[in-house]
């Protein structure tokens, strides 16, 4: 202990007292601790350090003392710049060295020292210290030491962005690889890679260690480690994807291995990660660009473009190829401006011209290439083939597309019925428009030999062929075609059954004769040409066959009837209507009756026949068909026969029998109006009464008003008031303004003060008592009204109750 230090650091009485105590009891750690505590209160770091050092040397094997002292020393340098205060850090390091010499088995001290060195960013010292620590410490503590170093590497040394950024710029890659070759290997972090390579051997988290190694850019080391742990051994990462590791491996091989090893690894990768094929192809192309082999890079991309089957891959490869060609063009132009040597210049020009052509082709044929892709995805998609044909303008090119389509499509795998037949028609149409009619016929003929599943394919072809012949003015040829198409087999029913139960094993050709579309066209053609008796006969035969096959629609029957009428065969035509009426139900029957009756009336058939027909026709009302027009027609007929009462009775019958409200209202209007007109106003009284009783309130009010007006004309004012009173009570005054206005005018004209007052009183009473209108409520949006039952009451003895049917536009019928 030198005297200088004593005079500098032993300044107070307490200091002297502690020094004396240490003189007598220097081996007592408690005394030292008390002295240290005392020194800490003086805030003199040098004095405290002087005491700590003396204490540590007094107890050289005390790890605790050393740890405390070194922790205090390290805390003094916390946040200090290790370069500016290098001397202080060095002093501290030396102290650590002393401590480690004395306490080499203390893992805490090693950790503290390592952290201190890491703080200084002294890579050499870190490595040396790591080695020393590993050498001196027991195996179980190694990982604690490693953790400090690995944490430092991860946080302070490696940058995950570096590897990514280096890959992005294609322009720079092309320019540097093809025109300015230079070392592109980048700066490898050998220090980290060396440590990480050792760490991998002991690391618990192998994935993370390999990931960090991948960031070092030390490609030979990466390739070596990855080959060992990823390629040669089963490896299942948890945080990162296996694909990321393989990509890093490929990058390392690219920089450090042979071409064959790289291409072999790439092929293996493509097999392992088929969903990443496009990225790998791009990586491979970049590899070739890096090797200044633009030709192979380009052909790799073109081959991939022609074989890829997903839209994503296609667009990625296409975009990259376009970018590559653009980058090459731009770099070439710059290079050509710099380089004027004739030989190189010519080569450059030639390369540039080829690449520009290719670029132009790629840009122009993008749609075509996309179409190729769609066809690779599904070669049986007829729509894609038709789109492809649209991409070409010349007929010869279109023929090639259609030929390809027909030879490549498996007709059993087409999904849209009729589409394959349409394809044949398009091809034939091409020949037709070019005047090659024989080739068109040959096309249709071949198209008909395909064993289609769907009838619509055949229909398309037969119709197109027939139409082509028509356009050429060969109507008989068209008829012949359709006659052939519609040839009915002897056992038509059996064939249709076989087709329906055959589960696509029976070709649609077997049932061509049931094509409604072909029959319609055939009959149209026959009708348009039948001038001879034979022609008429053939048309009739065609219609009859259509009916026999149960293919005829109501329209076919109507056309058939009209056809016969045109031939003057009226009786026959009426028979056709009658046949149709027996076949078709409900609404169709009503439509046929309407035509039939009108034509019968026009033909002035005997009255009894007409009555008989009307009687049959009006039975359609029993099938819940709205047929007010038939009742009105019948009424008009009776009127024309001079039977006025009968004509009104027919309408009244309609009012009673028709089910729908609108039909009822229409018929009541007609019935009342004709009754007043034909039988006089008085005759309408019982009709009005029945009408108002049977119709729902909302509809009855207008009839009540009409009734009142009629009575006013007849001069019976008391009846008028009674009717108006009844009508007013049907619905709320607010919704019955017309009636109230009329009543008001009526009282002004024909009443007195009391009758008017009475009217107003009633209006007030009704307005207050009819506040809640269930009908109005039911008409609000979203509300559902009760629906009157259509079924008769079960008890036959019970008289029918007249139900007031609320008119509700949103009314629904629940058919449960």
């Amino acid at each position, binding site marked *: 202990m030198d005297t200088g230090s004593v005079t500098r650091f032993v300044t107070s009485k307490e200091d002297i007292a502690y020094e004396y105590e240490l003189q007598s009891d220097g081996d007592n750690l408690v005394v030292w601790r008390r002295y240290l505590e005392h020194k800490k209160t003086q805030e003199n770091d040098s004095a405290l350090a002087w005491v700590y050092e003396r204490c540590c040397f007094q107890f050289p094997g005390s790890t605790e003392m050393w740890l405390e002292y070194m922790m205090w020393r390290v805390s003094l340098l916390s946040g200090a710049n290790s370069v500016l205060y290098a001397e202080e850090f060095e002093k501290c390091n030396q102290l650590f060295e002393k401590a480690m010499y004395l306490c080499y088995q203390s893992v805490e001290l090693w950790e503290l020292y390592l952290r201190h060195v890491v703080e200084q960013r002294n890579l050499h010292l870190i490595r040396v210290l790591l080695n020393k620590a590993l050498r001196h410490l027991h195996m179980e503590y190694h990982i604690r030491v490693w953790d400090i170093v690995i944490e430092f590497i991860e946080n302070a040394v490696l940058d995950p962005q570096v590897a990514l950024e280096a890959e992005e710029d294609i322009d720079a890659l092309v320019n540097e690889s093809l025109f300015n070759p230079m070392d592109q290997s980048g700066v490898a972090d050998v220090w980290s890679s060396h440590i990480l390579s050792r760490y991998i051997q002991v690391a618990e988290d192998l994935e993370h260690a390999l990931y960090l190694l991948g960031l070092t850019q030390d490609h030979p080391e990466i390739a070596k480690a990855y080959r060992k742990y990823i390629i040669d051994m089963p490896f299942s990462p948890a945080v990162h994807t296996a694909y990321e590791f393989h990509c890093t491996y490929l990058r390392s091989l690219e920089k450090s291995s042979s071409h064959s090893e790289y291409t072999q690894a790439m092929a293996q990768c493509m097999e392992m990660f088929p969903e990443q094929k496009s990225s790998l192809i791009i990586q491979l192309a970049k590899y070739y660009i890096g090797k200044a082999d633009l030709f192979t890079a380009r052909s790799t991309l073109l081959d991939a473009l022609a074989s890829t089957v997903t839209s994503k891959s296609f667009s990625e490869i296409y975009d990259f190829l376009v970018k590559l060609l653009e980058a090459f063009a731009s770099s070439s132009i710059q290079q050509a401006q710099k380089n004027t040597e004739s030989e190189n210049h010519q080569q450059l020009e030639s390369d540039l011209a080829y690449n520009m052509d290719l670029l132009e082709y790629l840009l122009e*044929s993008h749609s075509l290439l996309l179409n190729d892709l769609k066809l690779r995805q599904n070669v049986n998609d007829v729509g894609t083939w038709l789109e492809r044909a649209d991409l070409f303008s010349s007929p010869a090119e279109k*023929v090639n597309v259609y030929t390809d389509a027909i030879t490549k499509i498996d007709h059993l795998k087409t999904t849209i019925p009729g589409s394959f037949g349409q394809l044949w028609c398009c091809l034939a149409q091409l020949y037709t428009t070019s005047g090659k009619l024989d080739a068109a016929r040959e096309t249709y003929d071949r198209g008909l*030999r395909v064993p289609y599943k769907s009838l619509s394919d055949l229909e398309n072809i037969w119709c197109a062929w027939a139409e082509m012949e028509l356009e050429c003015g060969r109507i008989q040829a068209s008829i*012949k075609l359709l006659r052939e198409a519609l040839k009915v087999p002897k056992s038509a029913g059996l064939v249709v059954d076989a087709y329906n139960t055959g589960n696509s094993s029976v070709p649609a050709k077997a049932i061509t004769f049931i094509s409604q579309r072909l029959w319609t066209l055939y009959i149209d053609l026959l009708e348009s040409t039948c001038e001879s008796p034979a022609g008429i006969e053939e048309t009739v035969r065609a219609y009859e066959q259509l009916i026999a096959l149960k293919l005829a629609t109501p329209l076919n029957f109507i056309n058939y009837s009209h056809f016969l009428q045109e031939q003057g065969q009226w009786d026959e035509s009426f028979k056709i209507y009658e046949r149709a009426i027996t076949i078709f139900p409900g609404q169709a029957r009503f439509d046929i009756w309407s035509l039939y009756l009108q034509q019968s009336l026009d033909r002035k058939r005997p009255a009894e026949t007409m009555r008989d027909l009307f009687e049959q026709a009006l039975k359609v009302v029993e099938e819940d068909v709205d047929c007010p027009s038939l009742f009105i027609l019948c009424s008009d007929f009776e009127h024309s026969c001079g039977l006025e009462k009968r004509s009104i009775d027919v309408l009244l019958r309609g009012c009673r029998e028709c089910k729908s409200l609108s039909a009822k209202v229409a018929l009541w209007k007609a019935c009342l109006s004709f009754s007043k007109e034909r039988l006089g106003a008085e005759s309408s009284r019982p009709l009005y009464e029945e009408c108002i009783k049977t119709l729902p309130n909302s509809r009855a009010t207008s009839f009540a008003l009409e009734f009142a007006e009629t009575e006013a004309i007849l001069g019976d004012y008391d009846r008028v008031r009674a009717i108006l009173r009844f009508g007013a009570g049907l619905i709320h005054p607010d919704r019955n303004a017309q009636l109230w206005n009329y009543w008001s005018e009526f009282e002004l004209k024909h009443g007195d003060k009391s009758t008017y007052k009475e009217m107003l009183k009633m209006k007030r009473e009704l307005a207050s008592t009819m506040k809640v209108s269930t009908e109005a409520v039911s008409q609000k949006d979203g509300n559902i009204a009760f629906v009157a039952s259509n079924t008769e009451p079960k008890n036959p003895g019970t008289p029918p109750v007249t139900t007031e049917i609320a008119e509700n536009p949103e009314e629904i019928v629940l058919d449960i």
Partner: protein
Amino acid sequence: MNHLKDLYCSEEEDDEQLDEGLSAGLPSEILDKYCISPNVEKYEYALGSDMRGANFAIGKWSSFVFIETRPSRRQQSLLDAILHKASARLGHTSTMLAPVFNPLHVSELGSPLPLHVSLTANLDFGSARELDTFAKMLQIEVLQNFPAGPLDITFAPRLRVYDNIEHSSLFLALEVAAHVKSRSISRLCTLITESLDFCRSHEPSQRDAARSSAWSFENAHMSIARCDNSAITRKYAHQCHLSPAFSAAALRSYRQELANLNQLLESMPLESELLDELKFQCSGIKLTKERANVWAPFASLG
């Protein structure tokens, strides 16, 4: 570069392509893919109990080998003229018996049809695999063992009437020239037989054997017209139906009538200029497989 060259062509080439693309008619790939219509008649028979008359064999894979030609417009009109002339000549026998032939180069619906020179009768195979093997073997045989280059098919200056094996239809045919038969057709027939021997795992059926024995390369011809309902065939069928015991006599009479027809045609030689225009070149043969034709090309000279 070649790829790019293919994509771009001069205007002249464009016009040529356009002309070629359409004037060549329907591409042969399409014609070959769908050459046989679905036989829908079989569904009627299959469903009914009566199988008689069904022109198909259940569980059999059939094929036949032929040389195909697609007559040009000019050749079609020449064939029409020949048919017209032959019909007139055959009408000399008796208007009642004269068969009315319909041309085979055009369908009833007006579509052009290819004509063919048969190289075999109908062949039946026990399985699809056998037929496949036959097709492959024949392709190899024809490619390796038949002289390279296209084959000229020329015709003898006479027409002949042939009938089918059921004696229900008559065919008006152009005889293939004798030297073509002896040199080329016979060689092709040998190759076909060898291919058949290679692929067949069983002896030919009785029906197949009968058909094969009825067919010989010496009769190689190209049918140009067909008559399905002639008085001669009807008469024969009627006689067989009435008294099966006398069918041999009926057949003799039927053969005699055919011979008479052929005798009439003997006296109508065809001009050499006409035959020159009808001759054609083929660079391979075809065989039917399911609905399609399979192409078996000869080796090329180049």
